[in-house]
């Protein structure tokens, strides 16, 4: 999540969901929170009940819009124009929080003379290399201008009037994003934008705070990272970060997806946001890695200069040596020694992009032989799902672990496009997985909250936890390479891998588990938490991590979650509230159990709360420490008046009035000198498939965009008259993702039984499409059929003087399951943004017509008979609930 990381320092939601109830105004954009996160939405409603204004900006009127005070419909993919206009309006009318902006952001910092803004170059920032399609050629032009007095410090202008200071650059950059110009792009009215800007601004400041909520409705765009950056700029300008009821709430799309970013399933990160080493000379040895580390990995170019270098010197990332050495000690144990760089060379170096979409493209090209699919369903859930299915068919072997035999496991026979399963060469192994109550472990959800869940029962039959599978796979690999003398096998030989239970695992009912070889997930969490090598005691906090090999820590951000052998803080369930909404002893929130990150900003530069109403932490002058209702995200005894000496390094270089301690300058980044690969400031580009041309500059789409050039990944050119309709994809409350967990459950299937397309009555009338009838959606890539849901919740928009129709497609159906239907992702294109290789399923162009496709439809698999449980024990037959009657031979019909 570089959008948040580049703005504030850490790539995670800055606050927690319950804190939304403290907000005075909540903007939900790029999220359908009421439908996708209905449980967390209660806090939004709580805020509304307390008088907060609720705003929803979305292409469709959804169940979230139904709850909002303000709903504005915009064209899918025009979010940056909208947000840019909000920023423009805030700057134009001086609605920003002046003190906050001056002290807590880099507004006053002066940028290098060589920097050229996208506004001066038709949408391209300085440093763009046309050949590679990346920002690479010009050295560090996005960086800070070094001070003449102290070359280690950046030049600043506290009057904010220097033409090259961030504040002035920001003003110039967004000068053309007037509400009127943006309204033309978005298809709303200028007053729609003014309304949102006014509500946000009026509900921010000393006495008030506003929050912004987003989800994959922002991230799944070619400019997704920049949309989040724009939200960061708004929240920094309005002074809403680090304060109760403020912040940016990144609603995550999957269970524990925050956890799988923290302990990443990402190819370019090691646990806790340490960069994965590259083949570049900057990462050649552990010493190089420590010197260049994170800054290098997040820099937009591989150049030798730039502000990214400061991270190794000042701010919290100066602790990188302690974190990487402790990680290596956790992984390789005694084998990790100073003389072998603690095993640094055993980590394979990254030689390019190995993200999901790139890997599947390579698979499609036949370059990948085998694949483990654990809890994922790309055959229906990934962009251009048809391409993904063809890619799976190019594998030699495929291992799928899941609850049900979903599309990716059954593609070789159940995909209607497959005529003869014998033609598919892939050997598919389907391994049944245990479900959540059948295993213990943690979830780390949206709020960075690590929550333990207990195993309640043994999984049935051969179902096993994913941890069991990985553990035993590791054991077998270690056995395989035990006697190897090859150096390349050392990473497996020396890997620490002792997770078995010390004594038989007990179930809650007192019985001993049937699965005797299940590993102990608490041992894994302890390894993540970290230990002191000398005496084996668990670390109390990541501040104890050392760079000399005396500590082992699997993920520094999580350190403190397991401080004593029998104190698993993720298990703690004390719901006592401190202050207004913080519940410090429910689970464990990384880092260091902080609930609101950057909360130093909840106090003014002198350490006093901005207001009584919005106080969170403050400086206690008598006790000489930070105190309050949350764990301070600041050195506890650093006074607000602290000024670093010249040449100070590490945390000593962070002044007492700088809340964003992860950044070398301690400031929130309005302008991102590094960390973002497609520009230091958000710029509106049209989606790759768009019905209009970019009216702001000649660069139509994000210039760093990469597109899969597979023959079945054709893209419509801009304003292609064959594809005049804007399409977006979305989720319903009733189903989950592509349906591998929900379309096998009759109680959910009956609530949303069939694939449909939402469209407005105007478009339906134009094309002769009837409500509830069949319709066909065509893109440059595929055609699918679905039922038509004609509704006024979808409105035609006026974009650049012409009417633009939008349609919405739920992503939940496929050819496996109890209910089946067309796969919306067969329509979406496979293309990737440069920052996080994210696709653009949230907007593409299509055409619609009435009718059905000729191809043979998928067959439903009656897999689940609900209710499937037996009679209630010790209860007479007449008192059994109806569903548990013997229904043999009885046919039910509606």
């Amino acid at each position, binding site marked *: 999540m570089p959008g948040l990381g580049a703005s504030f320092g850490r790539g995670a939601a800055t606050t927690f969901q319950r804190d939304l109830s403290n907000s005075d105004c909540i903007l939900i954009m790029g999220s359908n929170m*009421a439908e996708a996160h209905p449980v967390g939405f*209660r806090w939004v409603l709580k805020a509304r009940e307390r008088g907060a204004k609720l705003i929803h900006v979305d292409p469709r009127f959804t169940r979230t819009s139904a709850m909002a005070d303000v709903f504005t419909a915009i064209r899918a993919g025009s979010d940056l124009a909208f947000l840019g206009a909000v920023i423009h309006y805030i700057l134009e009318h001086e609605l920003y929080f002046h003190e906050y902006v001056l002290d807590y952001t880099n507004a006053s910092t002066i940028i290098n003379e060589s920097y050229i803004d996208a506004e001066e170059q038709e949408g391209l920032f300085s440093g763009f290399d046309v050949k590679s399609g990346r920002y690479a050629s010009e050295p560090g032009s996005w960086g800070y201008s070094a001070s003449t007095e102290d070359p280690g410090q950046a030049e600043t202008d506290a009057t904010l009037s220097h033409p090259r200071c961030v504040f002035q650059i920001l003003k110039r950059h967004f000068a053309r994003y007037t509400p009127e110009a943006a309204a033309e792009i978005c298809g709303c009215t200028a*007053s729609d934008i003014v309304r949102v800007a006014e509500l946000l601004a009026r509900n921010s400041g000393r006495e008030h705070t506003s929050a912004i909520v987003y989800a994959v409705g922002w991230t799944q765009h070619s400019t997704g990272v920049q949309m989040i950056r724009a939200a960061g700029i708004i929240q920094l300008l309005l002074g809403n970060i680090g304060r109760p009821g403020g912040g940016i709430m990144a609603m995550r799309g999957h269970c524990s997806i925050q956890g799988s970013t923290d302990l990443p399933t990402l190819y370019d990160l090691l646990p806790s946001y340490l960069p994965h080493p590259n083949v570049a000379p900057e990462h050649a040895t552990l010493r190089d890695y420590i010197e260049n580390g994170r800054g290098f990995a997040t820099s937009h170019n591989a150049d030798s200069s730039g502000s990214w270098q400061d991270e190794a010197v000042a701010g919290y990332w100066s602790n990188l040596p302690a974190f990487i050495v402790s990680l290596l000690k956790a992984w390789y144990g005694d084998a990790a020694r100073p003389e072998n760089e603690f095993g640094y060379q055993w980590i394979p170096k990254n030689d390019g992009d190995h993200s999901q979409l790139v890997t599947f493209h390579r698979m499609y090209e036949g370059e990948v032989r085998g694949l483990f699919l654990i809890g994922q369903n790309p055959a229906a859930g990934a962009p251009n799902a048809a391409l993904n299915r063809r890619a799976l068919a190019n594998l030699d072997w495929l291992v799928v672990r899941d609850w049900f035999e979903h599309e990716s496991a059954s593609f070789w026979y159940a995909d209607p496009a497959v005529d003869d399963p014998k033609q598919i060469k892939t050997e598919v192994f389907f391994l049944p997985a245990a479900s959540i109550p059948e295993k213990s472990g943690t979830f780390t959800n949206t709020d960075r909250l690590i929550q333990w869940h207990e195993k309640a029962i043994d999984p049935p039959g051969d179902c096993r936890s994913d941890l069991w599978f990985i553990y035993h796979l590791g054991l077998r690999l270690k056995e395989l390479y035990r006697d190897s003398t090859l150096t390349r096998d050392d990473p497996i030989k020396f890997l620490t891998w002792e997770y078995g239970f010390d004594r038989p695992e007990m179930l809650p009912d007192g019985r001993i588990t049937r699965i005797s070889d299940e590993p102990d997930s608490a041992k894994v969490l302890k390894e993540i938490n970290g230990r002191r090598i000398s005496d084996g005691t668990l670390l109390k906090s990541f501040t104890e991590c050392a760079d000399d090999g005396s500590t082992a820590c699997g993920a520094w951000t999580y350190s403190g979650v397991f401080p004593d052998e029998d104190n698993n803080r993720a298990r703690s369930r004390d719901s006592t509230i401190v202050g207004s909404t913080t519940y410090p002893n429910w689970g464990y929130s990384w880092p260091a159990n902080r609930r609101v990150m950057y909360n130093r900003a909840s106090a003014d530069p002198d350490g006093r709360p901005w207001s009584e109403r919005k106080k969170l932490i403050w400086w206690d002058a008598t006790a000489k420490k930070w105190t309050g209702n949350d764990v301070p995200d600041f050195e506890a005894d650093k006074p607000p008046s602290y000024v670093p000496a010249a040449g100070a390094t590490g945390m000593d270089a962070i002044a007492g009035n700088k809340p964003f301690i992860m950044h070398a300058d301690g400031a929130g980044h309005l302008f991102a000198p590094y960390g973002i690969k497609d520009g230091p400031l958000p710029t509106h580009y049209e989606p790759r498939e768009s019905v209009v041309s970019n009216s702001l500059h000649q660069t139509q789409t994000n210039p760093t965009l990469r597109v899969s050039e597979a023959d079945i990944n054709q893209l419509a050119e801009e304003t292609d008259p064959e594809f005049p309709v804007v399409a977006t994809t979305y989720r319903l409350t009733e189903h989950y993702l592509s349906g591998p967990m929900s379309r096998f459950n009759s109680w959910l299937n009956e609530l949303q039984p069939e694939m449909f397309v939402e469209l407005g009555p105007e478009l339906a009338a134009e094309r002769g499409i009837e*409500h509830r009838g069949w319709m066909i959606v065509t893109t440059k890539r595929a055609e699918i059929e679905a039922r038509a849901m004609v509704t006024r919740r979808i409105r035609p928009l006026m974009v650049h003087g012409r009417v633009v129709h939008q349609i919405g497609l739920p992503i939940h159906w496929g050819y496996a399951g109890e209910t089946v239907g067309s796969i919306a992702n067969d329509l979406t294109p496979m293309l990737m943004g440069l920052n996080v290789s994210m696709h653009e399923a949230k907007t593409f162009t299509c055409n619609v017509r009435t009718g059905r496709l000729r191809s043979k439809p998928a067959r439903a698999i009656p897999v689940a008979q609900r209710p499937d449980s037996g009679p209630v024990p010790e209860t007479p037959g007449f008192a059994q*609930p109806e569903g548990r009657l013997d229904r043999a031979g009885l046919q039910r019909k*509606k």
Partner: protein
Amino acid sequence: MGILSDLLYPFRRPAPPAPRTATGFFTDTTLCIGCKACEVACKQWNQLPSDGFTFTGDSYDNTGTLSATTWRHVTFAEQFPSSDAQPPEPSITPSGSLDIQALLAQAQSGRWLMMSDVCKHCSTAPCEIACPTGALIVNEFANVYLQNDICNGCGYCVAACPFGVITRSEIDGHAHKCTLCFDRQRDDMIPACAKACPTGSIQFGSIEELRERARKRVEELMARGVTDAYLYGDAPSASYSTLGAFFLLLDDPSRYGLPGNPARPQLSLAADWLRTAVGAIISVAIVLAVLLTHAV
């Protein structure tokens, strides 16, 4: 003695359980987000089968109606003006003098009403009165409870309910409906639907407390400018009793699939008796006329 006791057993009645605090549901539709968690929680707890997979196209409502196998049902009503009927543009003035209230007033061009429907657990329940077997009773929580093992499947309750709550199951032929989670209440647990509701739209508790809370809620909403908020089933009407499961609505009851003015079926009994009497007199007259004609 043994035989006599066995023979008399069916006629024995143990003492009914002592009444406990009367309970009910208050469903606040202003908080309903239409997530249907109540429907799923109800089906799961009560182990009710799915009703089949039918796409109705009726907004997001694919459940249709309450029935013997669906005891919670979320209704959806889309209310949007046609697109060409948009309000005119306000002119933009700089911040400060901007009339934010005017801007806010035009912020929502339509609404999407959602409501979780359920058995009303009427204070005077026509179903209970109509039931000839005693299967329908008022239990110790003052909830209307259907003992499906005693039900003989006559269907009188189906006809008696003015809300269309009860139907007979095609699986076993008995009538079934919401038990207000009688089993959970006896174990001091709240009903599954209320437990699952993420936003507090479905509130369970002492009916007296709920009524008080609901009236306060309406006042609050009024003060906030939601002037169309009102309670449905909170007070008795001329034709019907209060409801043990009552609702806060924002529009005409019919928009939520509720009868605007529910009536006790007994109200039509007088006319029925009259019609029966008139019919009888006419029949007797005809018979007499025939007899007399033949006698002549």
